[in-house]
């Protein structure tokens, strides 16, 4: 019994110490991580709209060129010069959440650019979903009637994109994320037009 008590006490102390350490480091780094995320998001929106900026003036350039519109708790980033609209998407991949920014033309149907900011898929396989080379396939693709990931060798329709060879599950998960988030954001955007 005494030995069991000693074990429990040790694990408890260990748990408390490490939890304390984690919470402490989290508190220390939380702000910086948040700032980095915001900077990444702004960079993605500006890149999609081909606006040039540098590390120093990214926030001022963003405020000048992009209008942030909130509809029903959903945030849209409108590029006033071209009418392109961007929003962030997030959903479940195979191993963890996939999140990023998608930019559409002013018809809210044609894709201008997609940038994946965070994902936990298998590096080199499902992880290709985040690579610029693969995401370039999405440029000019239409989100209506719905985005489809094409697994066979038939020629692609205007709303179809090739799947990643060997990473079927990640490709399918990404398709679901895209369509679900699009339905959500499109409903909000349409309600705003009225």
């Amino acid at each position, binding site marked *: 019994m005494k030995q069991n008590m000693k074990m429990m006490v040790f*694990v408890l102390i260990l*748990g408390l110490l*490490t*939890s304390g350490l*984690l*919470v402490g480091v989290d508190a220390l780094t939380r702000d910086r991580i948040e700032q980095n995320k915001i900077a990444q998001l702004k960079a993605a929106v500006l890149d999609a709209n081909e606006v040039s900026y540098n590390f120093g003036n990214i926030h001022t350039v963003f405020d000048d060129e992009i209008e942030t519109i909130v509809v029903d708790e959903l945030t849209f980033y409108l590029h006033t010069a071209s009418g392109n609209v961007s929003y962030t998407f997030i959903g*479940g991949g195979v*191993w*963890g959440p996939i999140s990023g920014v998608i930019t559409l033309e002013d018809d809210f149907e044609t894709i201008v650019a997609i940038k994946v900011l965070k994902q936990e898929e298998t590096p080199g396989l499902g992880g290709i979903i985040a690579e610029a080379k693969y995401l370039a396939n999405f440029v000019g693709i239409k989100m209506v009637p719905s985005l489809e990931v094409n697994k066979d060798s038939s020629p692609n329709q205007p709303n179809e994109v090739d799947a990643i060879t060997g990473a*079927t599950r990640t490709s399918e998960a990404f398709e679901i994320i895209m369509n679900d988030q699009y339905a959500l954001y499109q409903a909000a955007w349409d309600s705003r037009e009225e």
Partner: protein
Amino acid sequence: MSNLFELILASILNHNIALVYILGMCPLIAISTNVKNAKGMGLAVIIVVTLTAIINWPIYQLLLATGTEKLALLVFIITIAAVVQLLEIFMEKFVPSMYNAFGIFLPLITVNCVVLAVSLFFVNREYTFGETAAFGFGSSVGWALAIILLAGIREKMAKISDLPKGLQGKAIVFIILGILALAFIGFTGLASI
């Protein structure tokens, strides 16, 4: 209800945690020398994984409510270790026959990636309690299926095949696993998770 059944089917076949997600390989390779051990280990994994999934879900809800999800990984590790320890004590006292059958595998399960992975997956996929229980049960049954399949093949091969000495042991196990993994790809699209 049918959704839960589909979840269980999916986690046994086309989302098999051993042959499709390639998790829990170390104990899979170590304990698959004969079917008897494999059955024991498989049963132990089923009990531990289902139990810990059921216990970790309300704990995670508590973490969410207090805004401390960052500690989820750490807390899960500790609850898993505690559950295994308690299970060992419980089995030794009340069901000694079962304890003799597979009790020795219990400490090994603490470090089996499958246990932790199931908990991390239900967090990622935001499952409900029922879905978590079904997923934990299905995944562990899938893992048990994989180890029993592997053990059956290894046992048979040891009796009738004339393997070169370099292939015996771990090398041939990898080749068998590769073929099994390839076969399970055939289940893709069967049921959704």
